[in-house]
């Protein structure tokens, strides 16, 4: 059975309904480690060794975050910058993550049709996610089909709960 590490980054969780619900839906699953980066490292001082150890202990890595300025919130980027070290995650000696699976779990404000070539955001989600995909690739991981929830501010409360349930099922399927 695969163990799942969910790396969660949200700078204003007190303003969030969807990510809070998603978090509630998965964090108590056995075999899932839910790792709340903004709660763990509010001062951006990431403990690299501890993070690398966590990565080694899991077969599936999830980056869960709001799709913030077509990317991840700053702390997630910082995490990538310091944890995915040369010689650990990439480079000749860096094979620690080889064979693992990586999933992006994202929420966006814009609707799906905005993420089209003729839409407001001019690029598709998969195009915008190229840096994540390539990061995963360079680290020898398989970049899975992302789990994306669009236009989350339009969700009613029951719809949110249903979406969170779908997220739970997606995670369960990876285990």
């Amino acid at each position, binding site marked *: 059975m695969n163990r799942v590490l969910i790396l969660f980054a949200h*700078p*204003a*969780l*007190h*303003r*969030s*309904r*969807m990510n809070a619900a998603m978090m509630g839906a998965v964090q108590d699953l056995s075999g899932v480690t839910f790792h709340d980066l*903004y*709660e*763990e490292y*509010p*001062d951006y001082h990431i403990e690299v060794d501890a993070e690398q150890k966590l990565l080694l202990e899991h077969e599936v890595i999830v980056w869960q975050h709001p799709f913030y300025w077509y990317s991840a919130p700053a*702390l997630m980027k910082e995490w990538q910058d310091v944890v995915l070290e040369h010689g650990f995650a990439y480079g000749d000696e860096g094979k620690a993550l080889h064979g693992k699976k990586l999933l992006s779990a994202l*929420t966006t*404000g814009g609707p799906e049709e905005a993420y089209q070539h003729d839409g407001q955001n001019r690029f598709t989600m998969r195009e915008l996610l190229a840096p994540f995909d390539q990061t995963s690739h360079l680290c020898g991981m398989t970049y899975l089909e992302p789990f994306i929830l669009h236009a*989350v*501010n*339009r*969700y*009613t*409360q029951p719809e949110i709960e249903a979406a969170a349930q779908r997220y739970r099922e997606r995670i369960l399927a990876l285990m």
Partner: protein
Amino acid sequence: MTSHFLFQAVIYLLAAVVAVPVAKRFGLGSVLGYLIAGVVIGPSLFNLVGQVEDVQHFAEFGVVMMLFVVGLELRPSLLWRLRGPILGTGSAQVILTAAAASGVALISGQTWPVAVTIGLTLAMSSTAIVIQSLAERNVLNTRGGQACFSVLLFQDIAVIPILALLPWLARANGSQISQPTGHSHESALAHFPPWAQSLITLGAVVAVVIVAHYFLRYVFRYVAAAKLRELFTAVALLVVAGVAYMMQLVGLSAALGTFIAGVVLAESEYRHQLEADVEPFKGLLLGLFFIAVGAGLNLSLVLAQPGLIAALTIGLIGLKFVILLGIGSAFRLGWGSSFLFACALAQGGEFCFVLLGMAGQQGLVSSDTAGPLSAAIALSMALTPLMLILNDRVIQPRFAKLKAEREHDAVESHDHPVILAGFGRFGHIIGRLLENSGFGVTVLDNDPDQVELLGRFGMKAFYGDASRADLLASAGAAKAKLFVCAIDSEEKSLEVIDLVQQEFPHLRILARAVSRSHAYELIKRGVMDFRRDTLGSAVDLGADILRALGYRAHRALRTVQTFKCYEEESVRELAKHYGGDQSAYISIARQHIQNLESLLREDMKRQHLDNEDAWDTAGPKS
């Protein structure tokens, strides 16, 4: 208690209470305030007080106490280190000034013994005015301050042989002794042969040292055990008075004797208690002394011979100033310190009056000569605070600028770039941080245990008081780049910073601020790199509390960071209003804090991304 006494007390105290705060407010220093008060109530103006001489004799005890306190602050080891300056600069000043002044007197037609007498008299400076003024500026421990002190101490010692010399000069001059001498400096040992006199005198000094060093602590302990505050004060005064009396008996200067007693007691565990007990008496009596000097200023004489007295005063100050400046540069004090040295000591002193009085009794100096001389000496004393203000405001800033410009060209130093003063609860964190980061730190602390501990961990540490220029110099202050002040006492911290700014203007100062008012004082001195020592840990704990109340970690941290920024800004802003009217300050502060609070609330919303409309908080609109 007669009503006359009470009237006098009221006049003196009132004069001091009115004049000194005014003088202080105008930046003139307390000495000038007292002197002006004295002139106003003295015979020359309103004539509110009777015999000034009696008061002056009484108040001279203030000078005695001052030297006791100065002694208390000087460890024997430091005094020993000052032996060079005391003998070198001290003898140079007395001999050169005496020679030059004698020369002038000879040219103006005095016989050589009279000329020598006048020369020796005018070589003296005013210990009281100089030490008080320098202490008020916190510069006693600078190189210039220590040079002043050395010279004053030498003069204090030199008075004794000079007094002994006067009768001999009188015989050489063939003068008639006008009246039997009844002066306080006259020794009770006169009927002993000279060798026995010297022996007894020496014995008295040794007795003071031995008693102070070995026995007084038992007396202090015994009295302290009685737990009566005033009894300890009584013992402290008894020590001063007793030593002063004994010294006078054997013909030594009382001030010198109590100074020695003070130095011996400087290492005692009762030192601070003694200082605290004697301090208020010293302050009041010294104030009284200055008032008496002011009151003794014979304005009618000045008005009668304005040209002569002005010439004498300017001549006296000018002559001493030039000689002192020459000595300063000969002894390599540096120009800044030399000017302080010259401005501080270019006046006559209280010993001049004593010597002139004695010389008058010996028939050496006629009252026609002594009168204008006394007036000039008193005027030069009154002008000293002004000279020092001139030095502060006009002369020193030039050197500070000059030095700063020169430092830019300095070669890279391979010595430790950081000097850290204070290695207590705050400083040791900084020391370890810097050491771990690979920066050389020179640590100064006046707690020997702490220093020893450091040594065991291989850190270069100096035991000693960072408020001493020589210690800073030996710690490599000339080559260092940063001076970190982590001292826990506000007063000490400011003293050290004043010293560093004066002596080592190239050092960038980073300081621990112990309180808001301390922070204001730092800002006043241009030290903007400071951190309030409790702010950081208080907001850290505040963040933990916010988390315990349900904030997410990141939000809690953002909150306290924003709060801290505003705190820092507020201190710097309010510093502009600090120091003036208290109630005005409070109302400005209150207004300011209110404005800040609303700004802070706005900013926090922004920091928490609360103003952003992009989140799904609100849900669908329908």
